[in-house]
């Protein structure tokens, strides 16, 4: 309930109030863009009134959309606009709280390959968190490739440190705690990083791309990087485990980086991979909704991905995009 109050307060302050959280001179410009975008597409009111009752949220003129899709700018600008539409980072992070940001840092690849989350986006999110009064912001991912090379080559380590975050090595098994996933079918128990267990705020920042095993990797698949034993997923029904992984703690916010989308050759990326420079970003508190929107962005129906259907069956979120309040912004 606290968070909802917060959302309401933040919303009362309006988009301008949210924009005030931003740093520097860019805030004024971004506020203007966000405001224009909102009124320009006219989608805010349209989707609001149409579907709000089914989403189970309190019907209020000032409440937040279920999902925000932003397009047409650099990753940082997309996030600036998107987070304003969700009431600003203050709606998620309160003063003195600890935040863990979980990007995709799976591969020792350069940012151009788009196998990892855009480092500039990670930096921007950290800045927003610290600006909202976060006591400490942690960044980590249990990489597939060597974590030192992945952290370095992705530039996420560099940008996150610049922004003032604590970049946490993921290679010490001692930091992973055994937790249970209530209602899980396959992944009933697993060791996950204690930062996910203990941090006040959990922000999931995946990159959207093709995936050879799961078909697509976005928000839910990204949670695999909080787990110590990745092989368990592959061994005992990958799709089911991905769906189960969000049963312990759903991220408080999912930000899907779809700025440059790898459409083939994922998740690692090859010189022959096909890309779509979508300049797109999806923000949602609903991890299933975020993945449903992501699959459309990749060019597929959400139902095509088994783990999305499984997560929907477990009521982890709403995969039917027609039942969501979606705010579409173009900047």
């Amino acid at each position: 309930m606290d968070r909802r109050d917060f959302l309401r307060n933040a919303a009362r302050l309006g988009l301008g109030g949210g924009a005030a959280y931003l740093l520097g001179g860019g805030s004024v410009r971004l506020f203007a863009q966000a405001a224009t975008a909102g009124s320009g597409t006219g989608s805010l009111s349209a989707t609001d009134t149409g579907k709000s009752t089914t989403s189970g949220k309190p019907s209020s003129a000032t409440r937040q959309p279920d999902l925000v899709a932003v397009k047409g700018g650099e990753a940082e600008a997309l996030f600036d606009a998107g987070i304003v539409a969700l009431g600003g980072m203050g709606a998620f992070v309160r003063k003195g709280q600890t935040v863990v940001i979980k990007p995709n840092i799976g591969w020792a690849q350069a940012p151009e390959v788009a196998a990892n989350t855009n480092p500039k986006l990670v930096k921007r999110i950290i800045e927003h968190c610290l600006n909202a009064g976060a006591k400490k912001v942690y960044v980590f991912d249990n990489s597939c490739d060597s974590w030192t090379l992945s952290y370095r080559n992705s530039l996420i380590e560099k940008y996150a440190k610049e922004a003032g975050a604590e970049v946490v090595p993921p290679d010490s098994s001692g930091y992973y705690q055994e937790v249970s996933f209530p209602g899980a079918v396959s992944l009933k128990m697993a060791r996950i990083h204690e930062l996910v267990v203990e941090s006040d705020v959990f922000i999931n920042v995946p990159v959207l791309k093709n995936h050879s095993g799961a078909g697509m990797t976005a928000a839910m698949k990204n949670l695999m990087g909080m787990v110590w034993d990745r092989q368990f997923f592959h061994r005992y029904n990958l799709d089911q485990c991905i769906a189960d992984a969000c049963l312990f703690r759903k991220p408080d916010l999912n930000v899907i980086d779809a700025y440059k989308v790898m459409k083939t050759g994922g998740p690692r990326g090859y010189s022959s991979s096909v890309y779509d420079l979508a300049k797109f970003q999806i923000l949602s508190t609903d991890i299933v909704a975020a993945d449903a929107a992501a699959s459309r962005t990749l060019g597929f129906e959400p139902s095509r991905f088994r783990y999305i259907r499984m997560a929907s069956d477990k009521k982890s979120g709403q995969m039917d995009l027609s039942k969501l309040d979606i705010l579409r912004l173009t900047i």
Partner: protein
Amino acid sequence: MKPGSRLRIPAAQAGHLLVRFRIVVTGFILIAFVAGFLGVGRVFDGLFASFSSVQLFPGVVGMVGTFCSDGVAALFVVSAVVTLGLIILTAVFGRFYCSSLCPLGTMQDIVSWAGHRSHRRRRGTRRFAWEPGLPFIRLAAFILVIAAFILGAGSIAGFLDPYSQSGRFLQYTILPLVDFAGHLLAPLARRFGLYWLRDFAAFSVWAFVAAALPVTAILIVAFFRGRLFCNTLCPVGSLLGFLNRFAPLRVRLDAGTCTACGACARVCKAECLDTPARTLDASRCVSCFSCLPACPTSALRYGPKPPPEPPRSESVREPTSAQAPAPSPTPASDPGRRSFLKKIGSSSVLSVMALSAPPIAGAVELLSLKPARPAPAAPPGARSLVQFQSACTACGLCVSKCPSGVLQPSIVRYGARGFLQPYLDYEVSYCQYECTLCTDLCPTGALKRIPLEEKKLVQMGTASLVKEKCIVFTHKTACGACAEHCPTGSVRMVPSATGIPEPEFDELICIGCGACHHICPALPEKSITVTGKAGQGRALAPRKDLFGLVESPSPEGDASAGNGKDGGKAAGAVDDFPF
């Protein structure tokens, strides 16, 4: 200064200064060496690691080995500068290397200093004494090292090399202890929000023991007998000791001024000062300068040979003072030692020739137990197992810096000949596609330096896929772990009739990095495994159309007909948004 000395003269003060200078230099060198292997705070990996291996033994091996296989390559130039630089400096300034640069020498000095302390507390004096040299053991050890290289077993030579011994001691013995401390401190550290303490990496008990035993033995000997190892078994000590004899600048004993009081011999950790005979064995002097401030009459000094003097008196041997040790049973015969040193000299030339000789196949067979099956894969740049095993002294530098930890010391995988030499342990991790660190750092040339783009094609091994063991077929669930980890696309998932993508393998572009092997979750046996190649090959470059032209693999065959590539035009799309 010793309380007993009566005179306080410039020579002794100069000696003090030299000792202090040496201690400062060697302190920095040892700290940098340790930092290079253990990686201070995971920050300075490359810088100190390169510095760590600026040592004579790997320099010689790198210079000769690289020249024979690759001619005037970059590593040849680097190691030639190091080697010849050290040799020339030694030929001019004496055997300073062993007391200033050698990490094992410094470790021994620390222990032997502790020995002094404990001894002084008990008996009120330091307690070394002249001991005759052991020329035959010294020569035998030197020949053994050369023979090991001729026979193509660098790992055996590495057991006598002070650099390799120090390196693996840090990597396989000290690092696990540091990690253990980190493991214990981690709960405390995270209270303060600190997460950088590292946990245990792959830990091998046998490597721990194999690295700890020789160095511990050397250090125990050092506690009682100072630099005995350096003057009997160490090949570097033998070579530099030989050069020291002819160095214009070195520690010298003036028999005319010497009163044979024995003060110097008591502090001489090389045990090379024969005070009754008033001689100094220059082949064993490690230029530590400790004797200079100890001498009450300034008979010992560091410098050039004095101008010829009137023939020195065959002075009466004064009875040794009360604290002085018993006179040595056999005053060393100079001519004998000289001829021995000549032998060493000629054998050092031999060693250079020997290194260039190709390994003798028969002798190799004699030494090697059969390598384990499946054959282990050597690191990139090894070229062939024979070439790699000849030059690798198992110093462990590549193992300590490998970012994924895939490089592990072989206990039995290579057979006896490759003891502690690194191989790719796919159970631990896999070789990183975007990395050439081991080839960049290898100081002996056992791993050839290759540019990244070339290394990406080096075939260290080959995978083989047994579909009957694959999760996709045995469990009928999606997996694809091998394909997602494969850096070249030689394993990839292809759409199938069942709707679950199935793995397909193309040997020609496989480089044997072991990513698929490492990650394959199949039990009880992995479905895809990598076997090392005795001779590394060159993989074909991945095809350009490998992923570009095929349709994106989808997990659901059923849905593909209707809305596969519907882009942004799906139902419910608003404006040009895809939803």
